[in-house]
């Protein structure tokens, strides 16, 4: 059955908006339970070593303190690291909280104080005296480059495709070379909502946990494995999530803590983290990347080499797709892409918005910009010269690629033609002006997902899927798909998500939710449509008798024959004959053959204008145009919000975000939002989003690619390239801060020729 355009594609406002702005939307740490107790986590002040002793007497003496749990008195836990794994885990031995006396990273949770009131727990946490035997730590990536290794177990296939051709000999033949090192720092996700879990101890021994997570089923499985429970004993809910950006993909330790305490005390317990403790969770790893490009004198690429080193922890081999894009995006016969890891005494990194893509494309697109100056070809023209319709990593066609339209429409909207080619050639008053651009690319996925639709006799439909809405608009687009499929008004569709009891879904991430949960909902609604048509046909004198399902539309409350619109029947007429709700539950999965025959990517072209007071190094991003090709856009309003937010993230990546480590203590030092800078309103100016028309027919029935991540990919490079165009200074070490701009004003080899 085809999809009309009654609801899908409309810029409708978030269906969960009123609940959020009135405070009715409840987040994990806002749920309560009778006799709820409160846990506060004690964090290690050393980064490596052992706990020698824990003196909990002063804490336990505080009236209202119930218990102080640590490795030496906790309930029994499995020893096997495998039991602590999850759907998103990196290869290795997952962290086991409170398992033993070993300290693996600064800020590691070492005890949980449980009290009758949160203030008491927090106060008593300061009274727990822990003696450590500290060991020297290594947290500086630069010192570990010679120890970098290729992870023996890959987190995902295709992330570092084999070399093709002979890159070294191609490079030696190429008349023009670029070989540069680019660096990106540790970044923390810092969603507004800090992590929290409310574990409700049900009297029959079941556990209901409200958790801040991007994957309720993932957390349910984790709790079952760690605590030896069957799935019917554990239910995890995450109805609303106040941002996550990837840090909610894996179960975080507050979930473990709340469940451990609830099971141990047979009592409901809530554990929330402070903002400072948010810096003890996963983060975007630091990278050192070398990009080597070989090109003909006209700018056509002949060889691409991309070598990336990223940090991981001592216990897991976190990997993200950093180099794969450099082989996929531009045509070239010879390429070599390598990724290696170096171990540091830090917690394991985790996926952060466009993991790998955000940092890898910063390096590639910066190098492409450097190449454009080296060969004297306009940066946009250089991309067009190197346009490819095929994914050469996989040697296969791309299912749909409207990137050329992104380039052309983006350039038109931005006014790229007004750019003067020479660096430092555009100025207004005291300000130097720079124009920069970059390409963005991100994988389009469709992963198996289940969903259920129930149409009640009163004409309302409930849609259910375990997926999450982390502020992305999932509630809204699923409601739109339901409304579209049955021709219902949007307010007749009720969406339930974020609950492990609902039909299973993977974690909400990877930009796959709209495509995957959306397709599952579409299929579930298809089931309802078939059943409705069957019932409608069975009604006496039904005008729909003998009609093929493919020849029916449901729009505005009417079931109508497409080939003969005079044959129609109001939906309400079918509904009055219903005694019971119609129910349809499906598992949607991609066509594996289509997945293998084609590569699937979303693309973008990002254009940025920066303005800089050269003397003082004060820089602002005056404008960004992001032109995106991501298949069908289900809701231009929520999709635009995704791109806007990601562009702001890209501005932060380019100019502000960096978690600094004091290597003496192995500790992140700027662990609060005053010193960990993200862009504020004054840093964010005009952002223009274009969705170019792109028809995707193969990846999923909806034709959707997802827009959660594509907006950040390329943005940092576009800004860095604009900074070079404005100043003639190439900063290859993010973020681009005043000190880097000022110091480079002295003549160095970094200056434009």
């Amino acid at each position, binding site marked *: 059955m085809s999809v009309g355009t009654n609801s899908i594609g409309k810029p409708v406002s978030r269906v969960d908006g009123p609940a959020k702005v009135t405070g009715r939307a409840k987040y994990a740490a806002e749920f309560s339970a009778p006799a709820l107790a409160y846990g506060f986590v004690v964090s290690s*002040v050393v980064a490596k070593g052992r706990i020698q002793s824990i003196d909990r007497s002063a804490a336990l003496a*505080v009236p209202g303190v119930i218990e102080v749990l640590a490795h030496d008195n906790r309930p029994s836990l499995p020893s096997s690291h495998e039991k602590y794994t999850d759907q998103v885990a990196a290869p290795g031995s997952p962290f086991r909280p409170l398992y033993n006396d070993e300290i693996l990273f*600064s800020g590691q949770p070492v005890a949980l104080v449980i009290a009758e009131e949160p*203030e008491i727990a*927090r*106060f008593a946490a*300061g009274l727990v005296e822990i003696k450590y035997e500290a060991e020297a730590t290594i947290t500086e990536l630069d010192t570990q480059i010679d120890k970098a290794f290729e992870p023996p177990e890959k987190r995902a296939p295709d992330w570092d495709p084999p070399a093709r051709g002979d890159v070294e000999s191609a490079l030696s033949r190429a008349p023009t070379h670029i070989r540069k090192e680019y660096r990106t720092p540790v970044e923390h996700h810092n969603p507004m909502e800090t992590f929290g879990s409310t574990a409700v101890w049900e009297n029959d021994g079941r556990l209901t946990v409200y958790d801040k997570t991007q994957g309720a089923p993932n957390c349910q499985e984790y709790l079952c494995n760690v605590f030896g429970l069957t799935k019917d004993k554990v239910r995890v809910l995450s109805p609303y999530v106040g941002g996550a950006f990837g840090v909610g993909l894996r179960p975080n330790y507050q979930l473990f803590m709340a469940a451990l305490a609830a099971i141990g005390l047979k009592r409901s317990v809530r554990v929330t983290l*402070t903002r*400072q403790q948010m810096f003890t969770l996963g983060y975007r790893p630091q990278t050192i990347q070398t990009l080597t490009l070989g090109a003909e004198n006209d700018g056509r690429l002949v060889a691409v080499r991309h070598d990336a080193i990223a940090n991981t922890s001592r216990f897991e081999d976190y990997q993200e797709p950093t180099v794969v894009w450099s082989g996929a995006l531009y045509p070239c016969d010879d390429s070599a892409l390598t990724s290696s890891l170096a171990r540091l005494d830090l917690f394991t990194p985790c996926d952060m918005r466009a993991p790998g893509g955000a940092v890898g494309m910063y390096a590639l697109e910066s190098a492409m910009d450097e190449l454009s100056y080296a060969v004297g070809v306009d940066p946009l023209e250089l991309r067009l010269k190197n346009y490819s319709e095929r994914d050469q990593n996989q040697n296969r066609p791309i299912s749909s690629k409207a990137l050329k339209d992104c380039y052309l429409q983006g350039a038109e909207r931005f006014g790229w033609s007004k750019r003067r080619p020479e660096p430092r050639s555009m100025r207004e*008053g*005291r*300000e130097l002006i720079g124009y920069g651009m970059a390409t963005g690319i991100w994988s389009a996925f469709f992963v198996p997902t289940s969903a259920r639709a129930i149409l009640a006799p009163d004409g309302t439909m409930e849609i259910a899927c375990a997926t999450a809405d982390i502020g992305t608009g999932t509630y809204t687009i699923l409601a739109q798909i339901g409304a579209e499929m049955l021709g219902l008004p949007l307010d007749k569709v009720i969406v339930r998500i974020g609950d492990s009891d609902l039909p299973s879904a993977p974690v909400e991430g990877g930009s796959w939710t709209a495509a995957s949960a959306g397709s599952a909902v579409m299929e579930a609604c298809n089931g309802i449509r078939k059943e409705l048509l069957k019932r409608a046909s069975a009604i006496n004198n039904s005008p729909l008798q003998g009609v093929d399902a493919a020849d029916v539309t449901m729009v505005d409350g009417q079931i109508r024959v497409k080939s003969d619109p005079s044959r129609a029947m109001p939906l309400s007429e079918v509904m009055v004959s219903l005694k019971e709700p119609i129910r349809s539950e499906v598992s949607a999965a991609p066509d594996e053959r289509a997945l293998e025959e084609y590569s699937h990517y979303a693309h973008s072209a990002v254009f940025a204008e920066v*303005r800089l*007071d050269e*003397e*003082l*190094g*004060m820089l*602002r991003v005056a404008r960004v145009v992001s032109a995106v090709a991501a298949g069908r856009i289900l809701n231009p309003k929520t999709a635009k919000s995704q791109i806007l937010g990601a562009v702001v993230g890209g501005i932060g990546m380019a*100019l*502000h975000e960096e978690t*600094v480590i*004091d290597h*003496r*203590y192995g*500790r992140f*030092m*700027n*662990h*609060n939002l*005053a*010193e960990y*800078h993200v*862009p*504020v*309103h*004054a*840093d964010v100016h005009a952002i223009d989003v274009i969705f170019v028309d792109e028809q995707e027919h193969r990846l999923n029935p909806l034709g959707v690619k997802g827009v959660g991540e594509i907006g950040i990919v390329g943005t940092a490079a576009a800004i860095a390239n604009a900074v070079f165009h404005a100043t003639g200074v190439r900063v290859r070490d993010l973020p681009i*801060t*005043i*000190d880097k701009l*000022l*110091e480079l004003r002295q003549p160095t080899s970094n200056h434009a020729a």
Partner: protein
Amino acid sequence: MIDFDYVRANDLGDALSQITKHQAAKFIAGGTNLIDLMKEDVEQPTRLIDITELPLNEIHETQTGGLKIGALVPNSNLAYDERITQRYPLLSSAILAGASPQLRNMASTGGNLLQRTRCLYFYDTATPCNKRRPGSGCGAMEGFNRMNAILGWSNSCIAVHPSDMCVALSALEAVVHVMGPKGDRAIRSVDFHRLPGDMPEIDTNLARDEIITAIELPSEEFSRNYSYLKIRDRLSYAFALVSVAAALRIEAGAITCARIALGGVAHKPWRAPDAEQSLEGKQPSREAFVEAADIILQGAVGFDHNRFKIELARRSIVRALEQAAAGTPQSQSVKVIV
């Protein structure tokens, strides 16, 4: 965060007797800094004495032609008060360069003077800090010291004072009125904050049992030739890498009085009288401003991550003086620098 009592002071006498009685007590007004520090266990007062009901929230004319600002006037009220915006725009501009509207609504004028440093090591109880725990060492000196001092630091502390408002007060030579068990006294704003020396745990010359009652602005307003220029890592809601309060009196084309105060570079708003004197009698010019900047920064010494602040300060001083001389002060809402 520790367990603490909370009481309300009925009047100034009550406030003073409470603070004298309880050694580990602290006054609280807006709480925009103190509460953060308590959450981090950096400050551990066992009693908070709420002074927000005291009658210290008005601005009065003084007999000498200045203004007396009650210690509890909220930062935002002060910044937007017409007497301040018309007559002391440097002060208004400096306040608006700091924090966020929400914080300025809560923060009091007296409390702003008592802001504590934002040094990362002061804030993190897992690391050494002589200011927080005397004798434990300075974590910043060989650590991450991007935000730290280039002037006036000591071997025990390289922290900087974080306020913007106080930089303007120093340039305007305001006077801080305080009340204590021994009576009232007035402290010149340039003497209010101190350098760390070997007692970095003491930020100011206010005694523990004293309370700030008012800030007095002298009659010299500098309403024509002034600028507050703040350079920071993002364009709002960030502490200064360097800030400059510049104020000039220009008569018949010559500078007859110059005031230059620096923020973000030292343990107190930094003044250099010899640099100011070097400008007096001269016509405003870039050369003169560069010379003044050089005098101010003569003794500046930076650390691994903040050496750039010396050159940044030099350029910022010159620019702020140029802005002041031209009568084109830095806007705190439009971030383009003129």
